[in-house]
Each structure stands twice: as C-alpha cells, then as structure tokens.
C-alpha cells in the first residue's frame, strides 16, 4: 500500500532568507537518497515557514525495491580446472563475497573481457526503516549561509532544532538527531503559546496545521498575504505598494499573515518620499499606500504573525514605532538642511575611497573633470548644469541622514542641492547620479544627468581596473558589472555618443600614479561583455553580435552598434545575403595565415586575369557606394550594397588561385582579399556569421 511520507524539522525562528534554499536542498537530497535506496515515490514536495521546514514524499510504497550489486572477479577461465573442479581462485572469490562457486556467473567486462562475477541481490526493506536512515543524513546535509551549535552533540544548523516529525502514513519513523527524537508531535502558532499539535497521518499534515492557523505552504501564504493586502488597501480606497521582495520577506516571517492597517501624522509627508518609503519598508517591513494618482498617502499596512487578537494594541504600537523613526529622520533631515552644501563637500576629505586611490574628495574632483570632458564632447548638453552638479555628487555622503540611511545616497544629495538653490536640472542630476539602481531600474532623465552619471561610473571602473581589481567569477565586491551595465544602458537607451577609448584614456590620466595598470582594452572588453548581454537579451543571435564588436572596440559607440545590429539581423535571413557572407568568410580565412600587415590597396598593373579586374572594379564601386552610406548610418542600404560584389567575388574564387608562385602577384591578390574584408568590416564583420 502506498502512503505519503512527511518530515517536519521544527526550528527556532530561522532567517527568512534561508528558507527557500533549504526547501530546494531538502527535495534534492531526498531524491538522491531515495534513488540510492531504491525507494519509489510519486512526487517530492517541500514547503516551510520561519519555524518549520517540511518535506513530503507522495505515494511511497511500504518497501524499497530489490537492488542488485555486481562484483567482478578473476578471469572466467579460472572457474574450473581441467578436471572440472572449481579452482582455488574461484572458490576464494566466492567465499570473499559470502557465496559458493555454484552461484558465480560470467560477465563480459569491456576492459577485462570475460570474468567471473557474483550478482548479489539485496532484498527490499521496510520503507520506514530505510527512511530512518535517510532522514538524519539529509538533515545533516542542509547548508545555510550561517550555522551555529546549541546542544551537546554540537551539530551545526541555522538555528536550534526543537522538534522532528517523521511519518509514513500513520506510522512514525524513529530516529534521533541533535538530541531530538522524531515523532508525530509539533506545535502551533507562537502567538498562541506554541500549543501542542499531534499529526495522525502524514497525508493530513497541511490540513491539520491550517486548522490551528498555521499555513505551512509558502505558496498559499503568499496568495493569502497578497489578497489580504489588496483587501485592506481597498477598504481605505487606496492601493498598496506591493514590493515583491518585501512581500516574500513577510511571507517567511509569518505562519499566518494578518494585516494591520494604520496611519501616521501627515506632518511626516514633508519628508522626502523616498525616505518615508525606506523607513517603512526597510526598518519596519511595512507596506506603503498610494491613491489612484500614485501619490503617497499617510496610511500603511503592517503585517503581524498569527491572530487578530489585540489588533488595536498592535496598530497603536506599529504607529508609535513608525512615528518615532520618522521623528529621528526629521531630526537628521533638518540638521542636514541647515548645513551648506559646501560644508558637506569639504568633509569628503576625511572619507577614504580606497587605498592608493585617495579620498572621496579626490574622487569628486576627478568626476568633476570627467564630466567637463564629457560636456565638451557632447555639444547638445548644457555645460553650466553639469558644472553645477558634478562637484556635489558625493556631498550627501557626509550628511547625517545618509550615514543612517545609506541607501538614500544620491537621492538625498538631490534634495539638499535643490534646497541650496541649485537649478532643478542640476539637482536632479545629483539625485539620479547612481541610476540605474538595478538592471531594470530607470536611467537618469536628462542628457546632463546621464553625462554626470557616466562620469561617476567611468571613474569607478577606471579606478578599480587601474589597481588590478577586475571581477572574476562571482566575486565583484564593488559591483563593477552593475556599473558597467548601467553605463552601457545609458548610452544605448539615451542614444549618447561617447568615444569610450578616449574617455578611459582621460579617466586613467586623472588617477594617482600608483594606480598604474592602464590598458584601455580592459574596460573596453568589460563593457563589451555587458553590451553583449543587453543585445542577447533583446533576442539577437550571438554571431550577429560578434559581427559588430569591431566597431564598438574602435569608438565605443554602442548606439551605433545597435543600429548596425538591427539591420544586419533583418537582412541575414535573405538567401543572397547568407551566400555573400560565406564568401566574405572565405576571404577572411585566406588572410588568416598571412604574416605581416597588408595595406589593403591593390595594384591594377599586377592583375593577371579578367576575374581580378572584375573584382577590383566591383570593389571600387561598392566602396564608393557603401562607405558613404555607412557614414550616414544607412546600414541596411550599405549591407545591401555589398551584394553587388557577389558575382565578381564568386567567379574570382572559382577561377583564381590566390597563392600564386610569384610573390608580387600573390601579395596583390591578398590585398584584394583584404579590400573585401575591409569593405564588410566598415559595416559589420560578416565573417562572424555562422
């Protein structure tokens, strides 16, 4: 008879961020152990709360299945001697495996040939017995970001284990771990004093727990919380800001989430809205609300664990704590507002950026210069705005509020700048200096804000690369990948043209002498990898992306790369186009083995055949046509223009042998090939296409 198997590991409040990984591990280890023990099942599931990790195996038979184990012995020839008696070797092998020579078989081993073998059959055992061995093992295998000891056996786990349920159907599975005996008893909600709960049958676990208000299923709790939040907000005629990260955190901080709706004094709405949101979200894990127009309202939804008894106490408590936090924030905010911006900036001298790389003031000074360089090279930008904003991008780092709420760096700077009378565009540039905050987050809005933000990212990358701090594998302590990705996104999405190699050359020149690793190709390659990621996320094929890399490395104009890529991707499915791409590839392959540099200029006096002349004249025409088209960024037309070369190139390959015996003729033909590849590369390197 099949039955469900249940394992509940009850622990003292485990951190929310540990839980989902533990569930995944439980499933994985259980599947591995079941396979090894030959224990069948229909399905493995896991769920959990801060207080319990739960594993189910659905449809488990009452026994494991028989296993066979094959032992290989000496050569098959050694089974019997000439007189037909078992040899000593055969008898010895059999004895060693606890059997008799009559039970030996012959197996064909791929390496040794025919050998004696013994096939041992291990009968199935009771599922409960198998699980009693498996469970302690998989519990011990669980890994957590941090572990502790708490009892005499000194087992390591995330938090103390206080109970274990292990059952198959109605039967308990007995084992013990960390001084705890497995059984069928657990406890209910903390808020009800953790009353004892007895599970009669593994299949009934979730239902039994729900009856005592423990929603053990993560999924169900998530739906419950979302529904309750929406309901609570709707009752106030508002909408809740449901931040997914915050929702998940609350799901794992509760066994039965209950919404507590409350409000706070309107006077706190004069605080920057980012600050109001942060205090509620990060410090108290509350949800903020907004009206139908998206405006922040002075109502919030806090979450409590368990029951709604004493709801008024909790509401009042939540409000008091929140208002106390707000009062702290106002205390800092008003003190900061009373301070001139220049004072903040002066204090940057005392903040170290990195060894070898000076203080934050040095860094601010570099960013000022890089911003000015960018302003000069982007005629459309208002240099005055950039000049006003750039010196103060880090000034808020020394403000009281940012020291308390580091996540608000930049944003507070924007508020302080605006308070100090800076033009809105400049204050916004400071406020958006760190944008984008993540891969999908908004970018700085204006061109000026974009340039100042690019200056900051450039300095970060240049500073770290120049001191040999290049991210490897999962190690990226300064978030350089995010910075580089942000830089690429700004240039790409805001269509900002910058000569990146020149920019990095300049950024390097501003660094202290000790920061002396200044290879331009390092940031260029690093940025290109981010660009590849962006392009491939847009659905471009890898070979297409590779075809435009050369144009990026040359001038770093990512928006231009995107334009080339777009046209290339559209045209490549065209049959004629893929044919010509193959021809370009062939030309490039011929050049692969040539040592030394080719000029890419062919000499008409050295042409030996009609085919060479025809190709040269086709190239003349195409160069004249495609070159200017590419310059005007009409890449589709330029790529199409290449097709005109196809017939001449085709016949050339058919009739002409490039590697002529005469060195001069050979070199001239190679230069023709070079012309062919140069022609394409000015638009996109077609030889990359697969």
């Amino acid at each position, binding site marked *: 008879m099949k039955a469900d198997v249940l394992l509940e590991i009850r622990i*003292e*409040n485990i*951190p*929310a*961020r540990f839980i989902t990984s533990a569930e995944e591990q439980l499933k994985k280890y259980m599947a591995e152990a079941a396979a090894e023990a030959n224990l069948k099942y229909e399905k493995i599931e896991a769920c959990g709360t*801060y207080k319990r990790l739960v594993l189910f195996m659905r449809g488990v038979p009452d026994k494991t299945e028989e296993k066979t184990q094959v032992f290989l012995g000496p050569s098959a020839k050694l089974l019997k001697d000439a007189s037909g008696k078992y040899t000593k070797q055969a008898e010895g092998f059999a004895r060693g495996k606890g059997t008799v020579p009559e039970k030996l078989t012959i197996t064909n081993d791929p390496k040794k040939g025919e050998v004696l073998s013994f096939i041992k059959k291990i009968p199935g055992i009771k599922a409960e017995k198998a699980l009693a061995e498996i469970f302690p093992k998989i519990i011990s295998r669980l890994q957590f970001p*941090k572990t*502790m*000891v*708490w*009892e*005499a056996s*000194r087992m390591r786990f995330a*938090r*103390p284990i*206080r109970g274990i349920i292990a059952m198959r159907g109605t039967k308990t599975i007995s084992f013990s771990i960390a001084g705890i005996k497995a059984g069928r008893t657990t406890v209910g909600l*903390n*808020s*009800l*004093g*953790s009353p004892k709960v007895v599970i009669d049958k593994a299949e009934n676990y979730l239902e039994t727990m729900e009856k005592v208000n423990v929603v053990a299923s993560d999924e169900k709790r998530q739906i419950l919380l979302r529904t309750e939040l929406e309901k609570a907000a709707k009752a106030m005629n508002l909408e809740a800001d449901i931040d997914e990260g915050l929702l998940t955190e609350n799901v794992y*901080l509760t066994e039965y989430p209950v919404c*507590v709706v409350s409000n706070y004094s309107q006077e706190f709405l004069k605080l920057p809205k980012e600050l109001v949101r942060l205090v509620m979200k990060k410090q*108290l894990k509350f949800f903020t609300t907004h009206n139908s127009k998206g405006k922040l309202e002075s109502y919030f939804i*806090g979450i*409590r*664990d*368990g*029951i709604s*008894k*004493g709801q008024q*106490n*909790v509401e*009042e*408590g*939540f409000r*008091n*704590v*929140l208002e*106390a936090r707000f*009062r*702290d924030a106002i*205390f800092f905010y008003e003190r900061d507002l009373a301070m001139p911006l220049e004072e903040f900036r002066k204090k940057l001298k005392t903040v*170290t950026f990195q060894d070898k790389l000076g203080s934050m003031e040095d860094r601010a000074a570099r960013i000022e210069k890089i911003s000015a360089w960018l302003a000069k090279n982007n005629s459309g930008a208002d240099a005055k705005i950039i000049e006003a904003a750039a010196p103060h991008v880090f000034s808020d780092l020394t403000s009281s509020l940012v020291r308390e709420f580091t996540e608000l760096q930049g944003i507070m700077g924007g508020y302080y700048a605006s308070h100090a009378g800076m033009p809105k565009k400049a204050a916004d540039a400071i406020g958006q200096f760190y944008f984008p905050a993540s891969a999908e987050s908004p970018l700085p809005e204006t061109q000026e804000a974009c340039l100042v933000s690019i200056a900051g990212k450039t300095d970060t990358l240049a500073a770290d690369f120049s001191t040999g701090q290049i991210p490897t594998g999962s190690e990226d302590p300064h978030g350089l990948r995010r910075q580089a990705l942000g830089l690429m996104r700004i240039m790409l999405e805001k269509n900002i043209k910058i000569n990146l190699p020149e920019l990095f050359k300049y950024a390097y020149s501003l660094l202290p002498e000790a920061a002396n690793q200044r290879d331009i190709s390092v940031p260029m390659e690093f940025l290109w990898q981010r660009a590849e990621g962006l392009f491939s996320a847009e659905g471009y094929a890898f070979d297409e992306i590779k075809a435009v890399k050369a144009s990026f490395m040359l001038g770093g104009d990512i928006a231009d790369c995107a334009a080339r890529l777009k046209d290339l991707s559209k045209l490549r499915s065209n049959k004629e186009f893929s044919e010509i791409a193959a021809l370009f590839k062939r030309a490039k392959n011929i050049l692969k083995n040539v040592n030394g540099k080719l000029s890419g200029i062919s000499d008409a006096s050295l042409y030996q055949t009609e085919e060479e002349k025809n190709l040269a004249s086709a190239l003349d025409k195409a160069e004249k046509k495609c070159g200017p088209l590419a310059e005007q960024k009409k890449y589709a037309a330029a790529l199409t223009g290449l097709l005109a070369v196809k017939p001449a190139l085709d016949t050339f390959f058919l009739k002409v042998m490039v590697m002529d015996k005469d060195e001069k003729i050979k070199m001239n033909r190679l230069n023709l090939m070079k012309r062919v590849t140069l022609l394409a590369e000015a638009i996109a390197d077609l030889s990359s296409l697969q």
Partner: protein
Amino acid sequence: MNFQDMIIRLNQYWARQGCVLIQPYDLEKGAGTYNPATFFGSLTEKPAAVAYVEPCRRPADARFGENPNRLGKYYQYQVIIKPPKENIQQLYLNSLKAVGIDYSEHDIRWIEDDWESPTLGASGVGWEIWLDGMEVTQFTYFQQMASYDLNPITVEITYGLERLAMFVQKKKTIFEILWNDELTYGDVHSGQEEQFSHYNFEEADVENIRSNFVHWGNEVRKLAKKGYYLPAYDMVMKCSQNFNLLDARGAISVSERASLIKEIRNLARICAGAYVNKDNSPEKENTGK
C-alpha cells in the same frame, strides 16, 4: 507598571526559573555582556543561570538629553542561561507576561541579528525581538567568547529596560517614563545626559585616557601571568570604556581604531586564558584559536 516594579517583576520571574540574582558590577561598561558573570560565566563547563540589572554607558550615543530615544547611559536587564533549556524562547515570552505584556495580544517578531563584540572577541547567533515593531530585546546563543569556542553554549537575553518601559507605559520619550509612581526617569537622572554629553564629546582628557590605556594594558599582562584574572579583567573593562570615550571624542583615526580594538581583544583573551587554565579544564585549552 512603573520602572522599578518592572525590574522587581523580572527579578521574581527569573529567580523562579532558577536564576541567581546578582547585583550590577561596579565598573563602567558598554553592555551587560562585559559583566564578569557573563564573560567568565560563559567560558566554563559548569551550568549557570544568572540574572541582573546592568547600568551601561555608550559615550558616543549621548545626545545632551535632546533626543527622546537615545541615551549615553542606560540600563540593561541581562539573563544568562547555560546550557539553554529547550523551551527557552517560550520562557522569554512568559517573562513578558510578568511585566504585563500578554504576547497573544501583541505582535512578536524574532528578527535575525547575529550579535558580536569585536573588543571582547565574542560572537553569537540570534535575534533582536520586536514587540509591535519596537526592538526590546537581544537574544543570543553565544558561540565564542574571548576568541574561545564555547562548549556548552550559553544563551544571553538582554532587555532594553527603557524601551520596554516606554512600551508598557505608552510613553513617547524616555524621560517621561515613571520610575516609581511619583518620580519620572528624567527626575531620577536629572542633569546626567547633558553633563556627560559635555564630558564625552568635549571635556574628557584625551592624553590622560591614552596613557591610562597603555598602563592598564601592562597591568592586565602582569596580573594574568600571576593568575589574578579577576583584577586583570577589571583593567580590560577599563580599557574598553576608555576606547569608547576616545571614540566619542573623535580622537581615533581609522587605522588606530582597528589596532586598539585588536589590543583589547588580545587583553580579553589573555584574561580568559588565565581563567581557563586556573579553572583546570584541559579540554578548554585546545579549543582556543
């Protein structure tokens, strides 16, 4: 419930749980953990159960009595239990009932917060406990003390008495807390925050403190060598407190800060070593890092 009643109730509750009620230690300290009862108490194999009120000083937190929620001097209620009982979380929740808080009518959250003290070379795993969103207690399973791995493990429960009283009495500032039925917390501590703020931030004699620091460090080494770990540890407490004062005075650079912390940690380890050796539990010697 007024402040002094709260302390009486906690004392009664934890005494019933088998705790020895001891009195505060007579030296300045930043937290109840520095009390020798906790420092030495966690290092041996002997079971322990101790509770006490501990006045604490954090010079840099002083705010001239202007901030309603922050003090430079305040009180902790400290409970130490070794080995921890299986129902220790529930025991804590029941202690709230003792001071009039029925946990079933409030929201109690255990928020991950792994405590550590770099100067003591101590660290643990645990939580800060939120009572309707207000942090009122730190609950820690010590893992290391004075850089020694502990065995058995000690649990430390530290109540912020002012926070708890504000909650129980529904007060918005610490100074309004009723100490008894007539006097407020502010009355009892009149002038304290203001005067000590001036001392901590402006008046404390930096040169004198620095030279004391060196002097006491030498004392610790001398005393520990002779096995007088108790007076030696007194000097560690003094060093630690002087470090906090220097910090509040803004007299420590980043690199000096790191080296002073390391020095205090070394001193604490020397004391612990002297104690553990004298206590004659050889297995302890091997667990030191």
